[in-house]
């Protein structure tokens, strides 16, 4: 089963390799991984999309917590009010003629995507949404135009409601 795990780690050399190393060492899967410093510069927040049953995810979170560089761990769907997930997608599309450009413009409107870079024959689109929405968006655009490149950020997650990892 698909799970999103949020981790606050000490923002120091080697922290990320310990987290990633743990996954490969113990045979856990990483579907996606994002990491960036938080508003507290001494901590980084890492979001990992993995899969596993309840027992496996429990073991993953325990093992993560055991790492000395890990400050907090939270499995999103274990939180009281569930979690919110978002992915960012950047899509580079060949737009050789007016028809394609119009088509892309209207698709962008429908999906609430933005055209963030325009060249004579290339549009770059930006889309943010859940992973399922991102899948839909990409496959729809693929049917209407030649997609040159797709970049996905991987999942970002935050708990709904009052829960915060920083408290």
């Amino acid at each position, binding site marked *: 089963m698909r799970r999103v795990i949020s981790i606050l*780690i*000490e923002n120091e*050399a*080697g922290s990320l*390799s*310990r987290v990633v*190393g743990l996954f490969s*060492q113990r045979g856990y899967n990483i579907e996606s991984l994002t990491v960036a410093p938080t508003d507290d510069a001494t901590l980084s927040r890492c979001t990992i999309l993995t899969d596993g049953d309840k*027992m496996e995810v*429990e*073991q993953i979170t*325990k*093992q993560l*917590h*055991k790492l*000395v*560089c*890990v*400050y907090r761990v939270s499995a999103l769907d274990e939180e009281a009010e569930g979690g919110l997930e978002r992915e960012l997608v950047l899509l580079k599309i060949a737009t050789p003629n007016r028809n394609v450009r119009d088509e892309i413009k209207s698709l962008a409107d429908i999906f609430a995507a933005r055209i963030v870079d325009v060249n004579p024959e290339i549009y770059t689109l930006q889309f943010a949404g859940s992973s399922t929405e991102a899948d839909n968006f990409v496959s729809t655009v693929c049917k209407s135009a030649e997609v040159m490149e797709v970049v996905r950020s991987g999942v970002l997650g935050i708990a709904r409601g009052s829960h915060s990892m920083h408290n």
Partner: protein
Amino acid sequence: MEKLNGSAQVIRTLEDLGVTEIFGYPGAAIVDIYDELYSSKKIHHSLVRHEQAAVHMADGYARATGKVGVALVTSGPGATNTVTAIATAYMDSIPVVLITGQVSTNLIGSDAFQEVDTVGVTRPVVKHSFLCKKPEDVADFIRKAFYIASTGRKGPVVVDIPKNCQNPRYFFDYENIPLSEIHLRSYNPTVLGHKGQVKRAATELAKAKCPVLLVGGGVIQADACGELQTLARRMNLPVCSTLMGISAYPSDDRQFLGLVGLHGLYTANHAMHNCDLLFTVAVRFDDRVTNNVQKFCPKAKIVHIDVDPASISKVIHSDIPIVGDAKAVLNQVLDALDELKLSANPELDSWWESIEQSRRERPLTYNKNSKNIQPEEVIEAISNAVLGRDDVYVTTDVGQHQIFTAQYFKFAHPRHFLTSGGLGTMGFGFPAAAGVKSALPQACVICITGDGSFQMNMQELSTCKQYHLPVKIFILDNHALGMVRQFQTVFYKERYSATCLDDNPDFVKLADAFGHKGLRVTEKKDLEETINKALSLKDDLVIVDIRTDTDEIVFPWQRSGGSIEDQMFSKEDA
């Protein structure tokens, strides 16, 4: 404030932490620290002959004393040579701090001479590690390393110090900060157990009709053996032990059923399989204990006390998990029993009767009529020779002799049995014994080893000569890699692929060449006398080469895929 250079800060920090023994090997990237060590009056250093042995010695020192063992090596090959020994300490949760030299920070990543990514190479086998990027980090990282190594679930910590951080010409402030003032926001091991869970566990313990207390190595590491014995006696519990738990409970006590698992005593495995409450303290349900987890203790409710939350329900689901330090939690359990006015269940008599019956029916035994010396009788003879002595420490290597020692040797005190249980490192026993002897010069330190294992670290005979470490080495010399060979005997149609050691050195002459004493036993009748003679040579390192039966097999032996009590007792059972 006092100003010291980086190297001096390393040595001073170690001194201020109370370190008196270091095991190590110098090299270009650590030579500045060695220069400071030269003038230390508080720290004694033992120069090993291979870095692996330095960490095994520090590990043996730590296991015997409970203090943090310290090793010091250079960069590159110095560091990589320690990896097996670090992993050994990691698997058995032993507090060791390893300080490694590193190339200067400006050379890191350039494939410099003797450069290796030490933190990267050791990462999967350390509890934590530090790479100093500036000299000012050095003292702080070493203190944190000690704090992390010696608290919670203990383990090895590496501190990698680049050469420029050791610069003897750069002086900066040094302040002595005790470990009690170390705080790490991301590391807070749980000490006390959850009160409600403790009460539940105490209640179940008093209610159970067929309880078993299973002891792991963590009980020894937490210095909780006194509490454990109090609990066992008070509740009249049968006590079983994992390999790492051996010596936590006196071996000759009536309530002690012995080793469990792959080569566990039938009585112990049988009791485990049939218990209705398995009360476990600081075990991790290793696959060599559980056999098939689906068939593990089918009738039992499981209480699991462990300081490491990740150990709980990792392999075996726990009905009453309690996270906390073994000593603290056992005290809580004892208090809860008082509070709830609970005592031993009077219905335990029939459970004890069935245990005694299995003991009578299937005692630990071997062929006493063989004309060849049986390894079991060697262990019994050594054990008898030191019976009643409180100053005897026994280390083993890995293989048949290790299991025979766990089965047959009578231990009365915790920390007096040292073995590589988790990683199963051949070559551990001898350097570990040397480490114990460094820590406890008055103790009688015995290394029980095999001809295969001993040859993995025998270069340390030289170290033992240099620092006068007169340990007693008993080689159960069967001219084979016995543990693998017995597999080949039973399961591989006696195809002895790469397990024959027909060209061993003459171990007696070897002892002589290193300036030690060597003795040999080839006849049963000489066994006892030679063992006594070796033990009487107090100031000599003695190697006793004992020619044992090559064909002897360790029994009982679990059938793979079966339950814990599904065991073979002879070759015919296979």
